[in-house]
C-alpha cells in the first residue's frame, strides 16, 4: 500500500515537472515557422514620397525581394542599417523598405544620415498593412524568393550572420 502511494506521488511529481518543463521550453513567441514556405500575399502599399500605391505582386519579378520594416525612432533599426547597405550591393536582391508608424521628416533625415539601401520605399503610417506580413514590431525583415514564397523571416535587427545567410540563399 505504502509502495503504491509512493508510485502515485512520484508519478504526479514527474507529470508536474514535465508540464512545467514543456511550458518553459515553449518557443512560440515570435515564432515565424507558420509563415515560412507560404506564398506572399498581394498587399497594397503606399509609396513613401509620391502619391498612390503599388501592389507587392508587381515587384516579384525573377528576383529575391527583401522586405524591411523600419522607423527612425527605432534604435535597433539604426543598428541594422549598415547591414542593409551591405545587402543593397547584391544584384540578385531587391530591398523594399516599409517605413512603419513614422513621421516622414524624421524618416527622410534618417536615410540622409545613414544612406538609402531601398530600391522601393513604402510607408505604413498606421501599421495596419504590416499585419498582412505578420509583423510584431520593428525591425523585422522578410526574404521572398523568385516565386513569391516566404523563405525566411527575421524578427529583430539583422546581424552579420543574417547578412551572410541571406547572401548565400540569394546567390544559390
Amino acid at each position, binding site marked *: 500500500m505504502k509502495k503504491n502511494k509512493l508510485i502515485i506521488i512520484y508519478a504526479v511529481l514527474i507529470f508536474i515537472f514535465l508540464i512545467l518543463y514543456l511550458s518553459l521550453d515553449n518557443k*512560440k*513567441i*515570435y*515564432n515565424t*515557422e*507558420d*509563415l515560412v514556405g*507560404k506564398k506572399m500575399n498581394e498587399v497594397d502599399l503606399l509609396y513613401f514620397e509620391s502619391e498612390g500605391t503599388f501592389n507587392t505582386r508587381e515587384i516579384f519579378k525573377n528576383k529575391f525581394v527583401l522586405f524591411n520594416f523600419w522607423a527612425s525612432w527605432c534604435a535597433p533599426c539604426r543598428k541594422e542599417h549598415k547591414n542593409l547597405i551591405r545587402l543593397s550591393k547584391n544584384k540578385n536582391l531587391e530591398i523594399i523598405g516599409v517605413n512603419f*508608424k513614422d513621421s516622414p521628416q524624421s524618416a527622410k533625415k534618417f536615410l540622409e544620415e545613414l544612406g538609402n539601401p531601398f530600391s522601393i520605399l513604402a510607408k505604413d503610417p*498606421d*501599421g*495596419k498593412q*504590416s*499585419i*498582412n*506580413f*505578420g509583423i*510584431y*514590431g520593428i525591425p523585422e525583415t522578410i526574404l521572398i524568393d523568385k516565386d513569391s514564397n516566404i523563405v525566411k523571416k527575421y524578427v529583430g535587427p539583422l546581424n552579420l550572420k543574417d547578412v551572410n545567410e541571406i547572401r548565400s540563399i540569394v546567390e544559390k
Partner: protein
Amino acid sequence: MKKIFLISTFFFVLVNSVYAEVDLRDKILKNLRCLVCQGQTMSDSNSDFAQTIKSVVDDKIGHGFKEDEIYKFLSDKYGDWILFNPPLKKENYLLWFLPYFLFIIGGIVIYYLSKKTQIKRK
C-alpha cells in the same frame, strides 16, 4: 401610427446591429492572445501591437468578414498561438484530449480507492 411603427422598427434594427457588431468585436478580441504581452488578451492589452490588431479587426468586421475568417487571417500570419481557443488539429490532439483523459483516469482511481476502503470497512 404606421410611420411611428416603421421608425421604431428601423431604430430597433439599427441599435441591434450596432450591438451585435460590438459583441462580435469583443468576442474576437477576447479570443486573441497579445503576442508581445504576458498572457493578456488583445482586448485587455494597450500595447501598440494590440492597438493595431484591434483596428485591423474593426476593418475586417466592417468589410463583412466572419469571425472564423478573421481568426484564419490572423493565424495564417501569426500561427495558432495567437488564438486562445485553437482549432482541433493533429498537432494539438494532446491539448484537447488530455484533460478528458486525466478526468477519466482520475475517476477510475477514485472508484478503486473507494472500493478498497469499502472492502476494508467490511
